């Protein structure tokens, strides 16, 4: 063997997974390397041929295909392929083709097996394709992400707050106790005593309604029975609470806590789809909570002036940093901040109405975009609108709503939710309209499929009524759900717009950076990372009639359809989580340094771990975008601007 094959040795050793091998192992490996050259368009591996080598791309570019002929991935210098067939000791499953003149170093099977058996890191790397690699990265959690750049500030020093990671299902310890609403009050009290529970779930008889008809608690027995002198033989349905708020077992404990604080509940039944599993109480949650600052939502509704609300801004930033440091996932953080944003909006309108008097006609506040999707971060503009009752008289009544919108908008701005640069706020006359005008506006967007008109309007398709007559919002949602899915040309326009923002990844997996401006040599994690995923999830969600707003929930719905190939939905979920977390952690760092938060990062400030997985994630997004093009036939004129 000849270690003087410097060119091969030095190149191989500078790339993972070979970088971690001992020097002798690399020398030994180089002596067994074979070199092959493929002209552009030549097949490198044919499906079904015997797997003999690990392929390492020395120069050039290669495309790997699925058996269906669909493009699986594109690889460039320094990347490996062919390992899966070797590990399975089987035939080649994915054909590979050179798309440029390509020089490949071939590592024979026997050498591959030796490295695979002897070196765990090498084996780990080989076992993961980029989507699996990304998933592992997520599972490893934040500790590994960026070395020590973010110090854990948890005073007790334990690893994160369990409340933030825990699914509600893990908080349920005892069997759920239920009864029929027809039992007497006395019987209900006996059941509760016998089972030593403080609440009783009363199941709906049958039918398509909610599975839980009502709920009674110890306190109800005191306040509604004893204090009022009710007959113990009356049916429990006479005193039970109705319209019970519930959570799903897969939701995070943190979200349940926010719900309970928002509705001032002490008991929250947990369902698995339609099956009641148990009841979570405030004290269950408090046992898990280690910090008091998540009670911000409760504080908001106790504040009496805008000044007092504005004083909460630093607390909100601190909470954000704390959630990040405790290892909360992007979904939890987005939901917590959105809940705070919604609560601030609600409280501001309450205070506004107190100052300006009651509204002349009923109205509804729409949350739009990130807040509606439960994806708020520290750096999200306020996007909102008013839907007014159709009895609205612009001449005499608009002054009131204009003043209310101004009150809301200024208040939010002072609390850290800055004015919307695109002027999508209720302060803008255009976005302060009666319901019928909103309906024709949405019909116009959907029927006239003008891509330019839609360009700034996609944010309106993520809407949620958060204050006042929320049924107005429900009517708009209904209109969107029934119309959008049946309008292929609308979906095509929306899909085309969703392709305008490409991930910042060049052909050879290098990051594409901003060429100039204030953010020169950086890339934007929102515009080129999370936003493209939200955009494409929105298109698919509207196509399949999903009622969800949150991108993660939308992807879960989309997964149940055949809009995406098997596994792509999960890959996108992982990509979303990873990019969101890099973005959120970036913001948390800025907040800790008291800098103005922004979404741009310089690749050199990322850890190698983050860089590699970001590339994997971006590649998943790019692939999903390519598929969107194909799925909604965006064809001619689809822009590809970077």
């Amino acid at each position, binding site marked *: *063997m*000849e270690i*003087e*094959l*410097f*060119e*091969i040795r030095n*190149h191989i050793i500078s790339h993972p997974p070979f970088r971690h091998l001992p020097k002798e192992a690399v020398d030994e490996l*180089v*002596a*067994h*390397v*074979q*070199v*092959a*050259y*493929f*002209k*552009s368009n*030549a097949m490198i591996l044919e499906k079904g041929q015997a797997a003999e080598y690990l392929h390492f791309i*020395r*120069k*050039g570019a290669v495309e790997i295909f699925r058996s269906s002929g669909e493009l699986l991935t594109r690889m460039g210098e320094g990347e490996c392929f062919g390992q899966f067939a070797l590990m399975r000791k089987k035939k080649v499953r994915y054909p590979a083709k050179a798309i*440029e*003149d*390509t*020089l490949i170093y*071939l590592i024979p099977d026997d050498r591959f097996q030796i490295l695979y058996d002897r070196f765990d890191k090498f084996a780990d790397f080989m076992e993961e394709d980029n989507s699996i690699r990304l998933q592992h990265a997520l599972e490893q959690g934040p500790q590994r992400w960026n070395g020590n750049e973010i110090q854990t500030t948890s005073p007790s020093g334990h690893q994160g707050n369990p409340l933030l990671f825990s699914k509600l299902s893990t908080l349920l310890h005892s069997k759920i106790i239920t009864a029929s609403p027809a039992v007497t009050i006395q019987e209900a009290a006996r059941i509760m005593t016998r089972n030593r529970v403080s609440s009783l779930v009363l199941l709906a008889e049958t039918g398509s309604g909610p599975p839980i008809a009502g709920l009674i608690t110890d306190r109800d027995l005191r306040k509604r029975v004893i204090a009022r002198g009710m007959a113990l033989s009356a049916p429990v349905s006479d005193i039970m609470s109705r319209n019970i708020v519930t959570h799903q077992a897969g939701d995070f404990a943190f979200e349940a806590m926010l719900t309970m604080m928002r509705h001032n509940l002490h008991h929250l039944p947990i369902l698995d789809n339609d099956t009641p599993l148990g009841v979570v109480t405030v004290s269950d949650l408090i046992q898990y909570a280690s910090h008091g600052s998540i009670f911000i939502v409760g504080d908001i509704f106790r504040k009496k002036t805008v000044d007092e609300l504005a004083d909460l801004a630093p607390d909100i930033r601190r909470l954000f940093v704390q959630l990040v440091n405790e290892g909360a996932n992007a979904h939890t953080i987005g939901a917590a901040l959105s809940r705070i944003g919604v609560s601030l909006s609600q409280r501001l309108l309450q205070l506004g109405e107190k100052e300006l008097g009651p509204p002349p006609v009923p109205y509804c506040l729409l949350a739009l975009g990130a807040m509606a999707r439960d994806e708020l971060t520290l750096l999200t503009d306020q996007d909102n609108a008013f839907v007014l009752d159709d009895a609205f008289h612009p001449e005499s009544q608009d002054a009131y709503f204009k003043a209310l919108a101004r009150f809301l908008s200024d208040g939010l701005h002072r609390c850290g939710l800055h004015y919307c640069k695109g002027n999508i706020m209720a302060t803008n006359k255009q976005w302060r309209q009666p319901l019928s005008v909103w309906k024709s506006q949405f019909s116009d967007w959907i029927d006239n499929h003008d891509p330019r008109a839609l360009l700034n309007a996609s944010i309106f398709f993520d809407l949620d009524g958060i204050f006042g007559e929320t049924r107005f919002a429900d009517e708009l949602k209904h209109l969107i759900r029934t119309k959008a899915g049946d309008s292929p040309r609308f979906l095509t326009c929306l899909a085309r717009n969703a392709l305008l923002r490409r991930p910042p990844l060049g052909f050879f997996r290098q990051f594409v950076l901003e060429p100039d401006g204030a953010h020169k040599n950086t890339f934007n994690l929102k515009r080129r990372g999370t936003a493209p995923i939200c955009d494409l999830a929105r298109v698919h969600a509207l196509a399949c009639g999903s009622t969800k707003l949150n991108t993660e929930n939308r992807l879960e719905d989309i997964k149940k359809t055949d809009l995406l190939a098997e596994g792509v939905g999960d890959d996108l979920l992982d990509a979303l989580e990873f990019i969101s977390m890099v973005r959120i952690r970036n913001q948390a760092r800025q907040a800790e340094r008291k800098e103005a938060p922004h979404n741009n990062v310089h690749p050199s400030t990322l850890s190698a771990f983050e860089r590699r997985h970001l590339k994997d994630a971006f590649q998943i997004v790019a692939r999903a975008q390519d598929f969107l093009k194909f799925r909604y036939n965006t064809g001619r004129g689809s822009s590809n601007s970077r």
Partner: protein
Amino acid sequence: MRPRPRDHKQAPHTAAEDWQTRFNHLSRNVTDPRLKAFYRASCVPAHTPVKKVNFMALDLETTGLDLETDAILSIGYIPLKFNRICCSSARNIIIRPGESPEHPLAEIHGITHSHLKNAPEFDNILEDLLNAMAGHIILAHYNTIERGFLDRACRELLGQPLEFPVVDTMELEARIHTPFTPNTFQRWMGLSPSPSLRLSHSRERYGLPRYTPHHALTDALATAELFMAQVADRFSPETPVGELWI
């Protein structure tokens, strides 16, 4: 450095006879057992398709270009098929020149005098080299050096010639890029000079990576890769080797 004439039929060794016949002739006429064994291993007939030929890329680093005064410093070689290079039989051999004058070695080759102090002389490596070459068609980029210096070394040492066919990757490039330097008038007419035939420039045209030159084995590897690219680009596995060698 002019490449060899474009038409290989004018190459001196193949003018009258094919290489197989020439090897048979030489194997009868040389007396040195090492040379005899080399020629006995014979040479494939000219009509043999490229896919059946064992090649060996060879590169010499010398103290200069003058056959009369310069000496071989190192020899790198690596065997290959038309579509596959095998690194396991690659070698890089450093040679101590006989009564060599002082040359500024390290400047180009990275070979220092201390490297050479313990290196074998040409005589000691000749047998291994010939054994490795036997049965292979030699590949070189600008064959004058490899052929000329090895032949001269054998003649000096043994008084007998070392001849062999060479597929010259530079000559293969010259076939499509006829060397041409426009004069002032031609330049004014808009004619541009032919592309460079140097190893690194030729490789670039086939999308091959940039290697650090002037290390015998690296250059041999570079030549081998260039040859695979040339076959993939312009010839075929069925091309008779006689159309390529000179």
